[in-house]
């Protein structure tokens, strides 16, 4: 076997990764430029309902006669933000809790470990549904539910990593050089402990998107009227057989968005494994 033979597949699929990164960039750009790119007001209802794609409406119109392309563009904004918050909020909470517990240890750590164990053992997904039912539909309850249930994974990941990093010699070196514990935690421990949870974040964002889509499917998603991908799919479900494009495009965007974020995470993991 020669080098070329074993190396070939590696190069062969690099394009997938690049296209993932490219797609993600494109999606973000489209979201940022939505007001410029949209050809119509995404909320403007007309009696031109359920039209197939045409020059005036490149992706057709929905059941209320709104331009699907424009809604899609604005939905990207909603979903990127939702994704970021639904995954970012738990990460923030989990990171702070996990870091403090992992670094300082002691009773706090024991408490956090118990709580995390309990949370871990609870049926998170079922509770997610129950929570949103309790809090009622809408963005705030979505975020609260994701935050309340999602922090545990991050707290665990971070705690484990912090405990691993804490044993590293440069941590005690930093302390000996006169840094306070907080400074050591923030300057040395956290940056080195974040990697795993960042990788997880990329998966989590896709999962958050799915979660939102599923909750929309049950009619528990964002406020009605807000352009949002999951809601668009679930609204279009009933027209699937006659107007397939209505569900197809937002669905496709969900898949693209989730996969390209996840592909970035894969890249990190692979790089880790390659070392």
């Amino acid at each position: 076997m020669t080098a070329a033979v074993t190396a070939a597949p590696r190069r062969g699929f690099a394009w997938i990764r690049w296209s993932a990164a490219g797609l993600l960039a494109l999606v973000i750009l489209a979201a940022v430029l939505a007001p410029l790119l949209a050809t119509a007001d995404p909320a403007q209802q007309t009696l031109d309902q359920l039209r197939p794609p045409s020059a005036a409406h490149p992706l057709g119109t929905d059941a209320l006669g709104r331009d699907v392309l424009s809604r899609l563009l604005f939905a990207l904004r909603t979903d990127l933000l939702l994704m970021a918050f639904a995954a970012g909020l738990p990460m923030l909470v989990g990171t702070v809790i996990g870091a403090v517990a992992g670094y300082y240890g002691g009773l706090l750590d024991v408490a956090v470990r118990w709580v995390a164990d309990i949370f871990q053992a609870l049926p998170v997904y079922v509770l997610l549904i129950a929570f949103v039912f309790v809090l009622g539909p809408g963005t705030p309850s979505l975020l609260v539910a994701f935050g309340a249930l999602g922090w545990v994974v991050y707290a665990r990941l971070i705690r484990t990593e912090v405990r691993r990093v804490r044993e590293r010699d440069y941590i005690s070196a930093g302390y000996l050089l006169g840094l306070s514990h907080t400074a050591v935690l923030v300057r040395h421990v956290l940056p080195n402990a974040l990697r795993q949870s960042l990788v997880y974040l990329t998966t989590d964002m896709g999962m958050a998107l799915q979660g939102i889509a599923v909750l929309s499917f049950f009619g528990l998603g964002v406020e009605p009227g807000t352009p949002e991908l999951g809601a668009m799919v679930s609204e279009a479900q009933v027209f699937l057989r006659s107007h397939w494009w209505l569900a197809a495009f937002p669905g496709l965007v969900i898949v693209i968005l989730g996969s390209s974020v996840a592909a970035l995470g894969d890249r990190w993991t692979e790089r880790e494994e390659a070392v």
Partner: protein
Amino acid sequence: MSELVRAEQLTVAYAVQDGLFRRRIRAVDGVELGLARGEILGLVGESGCGKSTLGRAIVGLTLPSAGRVLLDGVPVPRRRPPGMRRRVQMIYQDPGSSLDPLRTVAQTLAEPLRKHSADQVAHRTRELLEMVGLGEEHLRARPRELSGGQRQRIAIARALAVAPDVLVADEAVASLDASVAGAVLNLLCELRERLNLTVLFISHDLAVVRRLCDRVAVMYLGRVVEEGPAAEVFAHPGHPYTRVLLDAVPSADRRRLGARALGEPPSPLHLPPGCRFHPRCPAAATRCGTAAPPEVRRDGHRVACHFAWQAQEV
């Protein structure tokens, strides 16, 4: 001679799991050890005898459960203020973990100098690099781009950045190639001369200790069993344990391997009564199993053995 650092009846205990129960073991047990300014003291002993624990207690990373550490004859508080922490620095065994992997050399070295102006920092950083024999080209490198020896030099430079009085080097060259280790050790000697550093050099490599150190302390199961001038200890070891250690070192002359099988050291959970070494001691007598050995001193050389210097080669 006034002592710069002194461990006084220093004891460090850890909680460990023994079957279904938790128990405390004393990893360091009433150690008495002093370092004079400008000297290198070698600390040797088998794995698990408490060398690292003692070192970490002296720099203040591990809190003693009894006894205290004195700096310039003044006891240090249990929680040392930053200024006092800076006076005693540590060099670690694993060069892979002693540097923050995310920071460049320049950032690592600048960290302890944060109070200074940018100009001063740049100047001082270059000075430090030069001191450990590295060039400016390494300033932008991250740890993974450096070799083990280079990393260890950076770690030394970082410790020197705060102008410490004492360095504790815990197996600082154990994971380096002999050749690279030699270079780092040469650097240590040089720095000691230049900066009048005091060094506690923890190692299990007796050959290195003999070459590098002014004095040697031998630890066994949490206790210092022998301490004295290096030349003295190597030439006339007073404790049977020291002799066993020396015998085990492969040497150029002898194709014969050290005398006898020593067996495993006892678990610190089940310490033997009397002299802790007696179950493995080639020269043990009944007394050794019942009474703790006295400390015998002979001009700057002390040995904790009932038969110090008496037990002949077995």
